[in-house]
């Protein structure tokens, strides 16, 4: 295969797929390097019922404990989908003993876009101005107006179902028809609207799942197991949408089993000229060159590649004249909330497995509202449902009548589950561990990350406010909770190569272009200067598309 391309893209997941699509559609011969194996729709298992699985969904826990003790901390790494997560022995990392971090990874064509949660929320200027307003870290170099057209661009292509609300803190987008709330959820929604009019709004989740046919992909059939794949391509993944679009151009070369070791830097021209790859199967070294490089390997992998690419000119990591590379790692905090039983109609129940829940956007620390004793805010996901046969274990009785009773649905439950913003903190960082290498001989990361007081204060407030709302909805057996999850578990890790205006305090400029190296772009979560509380993938995708347009323009003008 050729060794020289117009563009090299490292990673084939959420952002790599977008870079592939945008760059090939602009006419660039593009090589996408993917560390893991090829995945096709043949690998999808969403319609394999439990009785065809060896452990019926209880999972092969001995195999998981042996090979994926970290990955199996993710809910989606189950008997069906564990094949979409890495082997922990091949992919080690280190943490200090007192700072556990879950590094949850999918190395394959499609990356983690195969198993992502599909929740899709725009940021607003409340988020882009937050660091400036609070005097924390550095100001974002962009505002909502800079990214809004790119949100439109991404949403129109991927298909996002949702309800328009007109909320300034959660801008509306190009939505397909929303999925429906069930009657447990409308009950809670209406009670909240009555008690907190105009302040707290419960809506159906905005998600990258099609509610009608769109761009050659079929509407959802409500089997409910998106993280196992989707033969009708109804949810967005790079595998389902962006990579096929890139392939259609005839300009795409996709190379699986290509573990990127580092980037090649030419100090004379002050450009990256290519990448060093270890073949995942043969473990032979191979190099590819390109006029531009897009790092889309995921927040921590992109940081690792740059740290492993140190040169005489950049002794602490490529493009790290600021010293901020690897710093300011964030992950949303989750798990403050409450659950309870609600008095929704006993003679009604949802049918079909809706792969989406409710969303209750941020309502704390909004402009013109009272200040909370913490910074920023949180939003809730969750929803209502009725108990099934699982309640039988503690339902007294047995026998024919009892079996018949279990056929009927059990009580209605409602669950609020909070996701809070994580503040950027210079002391949350990654570095190369001098003693630890992966299965391909590549030095790997030592991750230092812990939540601070503000994150825990958000979850405490989220728990109390959730219980209040359930009480307002007349719920019984209300149980507030705060989970103590380590960072990484939300799998919204971001930061480590932040965007900013000043090359002295940031790695990337306002177009995801390295301040130090004009033909190097980093467009995955590494670029983030703050975290907001919204699920981040749509923002990564929009920033990627925007950066691609910028890079193509610079190339046409021969500036890079």
């Amino acid at each position, binding site marked *: 295969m050729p060794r020289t391309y117009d563009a090299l893209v490292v990673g084939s997941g959420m952002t790599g797929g977008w870079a592939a699509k945008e760059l090939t559609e602009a006419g660039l011969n593009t090589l996408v390097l993917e560390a893991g194996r090829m995945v096709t729709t043949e690998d999808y298992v969403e319609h394999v019922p*439990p009785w065809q699985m060896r452990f019926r969904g*209880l999972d092969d826990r001995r195999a998981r404990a042996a090979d994926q003790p970290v990955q199996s901390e993710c809910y989606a790494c189950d008997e069906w989908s564990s094949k979409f997560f890495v082997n922990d022995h091949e992919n080690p990392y280190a943490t200090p003993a007192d700072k556990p971090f879950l590094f949850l990874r999918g190395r394959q064509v499609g990356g983690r876009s195969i198993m992502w949660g599909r929740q899709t929320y725009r940021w607003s200027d409340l988020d882009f101005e937050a660091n400036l307003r609070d005097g924390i870290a550095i100001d974002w170099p962009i505002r909502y107006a800079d990214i809004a057209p790119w949100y439109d661009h991404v949403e129109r292509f991927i298909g996002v179902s949702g309800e328009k609300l007109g909320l300034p803190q959660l801008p509306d987008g190009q939505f397909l028809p929303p999925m429906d709330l069930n009657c447990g959820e409308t009950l809670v929604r209406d009670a909240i609207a009555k008690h907190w009019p105009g302040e707290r709004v419960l809506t159906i989740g905005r998600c990258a799942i099609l509610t009608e046919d769109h761009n050659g992909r079929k509407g959802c*059939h*409500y089997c409910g197991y998106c993280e196992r794949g989707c033969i009708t391509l109804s949810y967005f993944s790079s595998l389902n949408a962006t990579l096929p679009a890139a392939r259609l151009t005839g300009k795409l070369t996709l190379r699986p089993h290509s573990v990127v070791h580092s980037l090649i830097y030419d100090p004379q021209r002050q450009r990256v000229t290519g990448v060093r790859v270890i073949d995942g199967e043969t473990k032979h070294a191979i190099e590819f060159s390109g006029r531009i490089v897009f790092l889309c390997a995921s927040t921590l992998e992109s940081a690792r590649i740059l740290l492993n690419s140190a040169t005489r000119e950049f002794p602490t990591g490529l493009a790290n004249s600021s010293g901020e590379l690897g710093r300011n790692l964030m992950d949303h905090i989750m798990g403050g909330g409450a659950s309870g039983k609600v008095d929704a109609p006993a003679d*009604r*129940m*949802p049918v079909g497995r*809706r792969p989406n829940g409710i969303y209750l956007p941020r309502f704390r620390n909004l402009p013109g509202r009272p200040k909370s004793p913490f910074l920023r805010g949180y939003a809730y996901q969750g929803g209502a449902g009725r108990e099934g046969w699982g309640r039988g274990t*503690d339902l007294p009785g047995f026998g024919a009548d009892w079996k018949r009773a279990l056929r009927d649905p059990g009580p209605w439950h409602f669950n609020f589950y909070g996701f809070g913003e994580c503040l950027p903190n210079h002391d949350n960082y990654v570095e190369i561990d001098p003693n630890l290498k992966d299965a391909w001989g590549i030095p790997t990361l030592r991750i230092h990350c812990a939540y601070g007081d503000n994150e825990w204060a958000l979850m405490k407030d989220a728990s109390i406010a959730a219980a209040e709302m359930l009480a307002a909805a007349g719920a019984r057996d209300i149980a507030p909770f705060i989970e103590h999850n380590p960072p990484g578990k939300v799998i919204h890790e971001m930061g480590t190569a932040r965007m900013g205006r000043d090359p002295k305090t940031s790695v990337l400029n306002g177009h995801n272009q390295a301040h130090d190296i004009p033909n190097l772009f980093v467009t995955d979560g590494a670029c983030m200067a703050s975290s907001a509380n919204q699920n981040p993938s749509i923002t990564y995708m929009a920033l990627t598309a925007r950066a691609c347009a910028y890079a193509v323009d610079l190339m046409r003008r021969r500036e890079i």
Partner: protein
Amino acid sequence: MDRRAALRLLGATTTAATATDLHALGRALHRHLGRGAPLRVLDPHQNATVIAVSDVILPATDTPGAKAALVNEFIDLLLADWYEPEDRDRILAGLAEVDARARAAFGKDFVDGTGAEQAALLAALDDAAARWNAAPQATRGPQPFYREIKWLTLFGYYTSEIGAEQEQHYAIVPGRYVPCAPADTAVAPE
């Protein structure tokens, strides 16, 4: 179970055979013959006990019950390849304890009891499990064996093709989401 094992089982019980015993034996043989994979942990008597207990919990009604759904084979798989050895041993001890209670209550192993005797014994265990469930978590101790076998029965049954499709009308591809369907015509939730 193969023919030789069936004969061995027959031989072991011929010395004091009564009509009831032979009837029970016939039922046990019926349970064993013609099944799928050979059992790996449960011996024939333990297997017969698992079948009997699970089929009292979830009997055949207008749909097949736990026995027809081969819940015993799934439990054997879990005991062989899923449970930790100490948990497996605890469950096997629990099965023996059921027999000890049966002999104390009606002078026979559980599998040899009448339907009424078996139901009365499980009713007592079910009451005890309910008391355990209602007790404070901090002081109530480990769950009773009966609660564990009840859960195994439920899980093994409702995740089987029979339990999911015939009893629950589980649809792999629902095709639509109806948010507030009438519950009496609806598909039961998982």
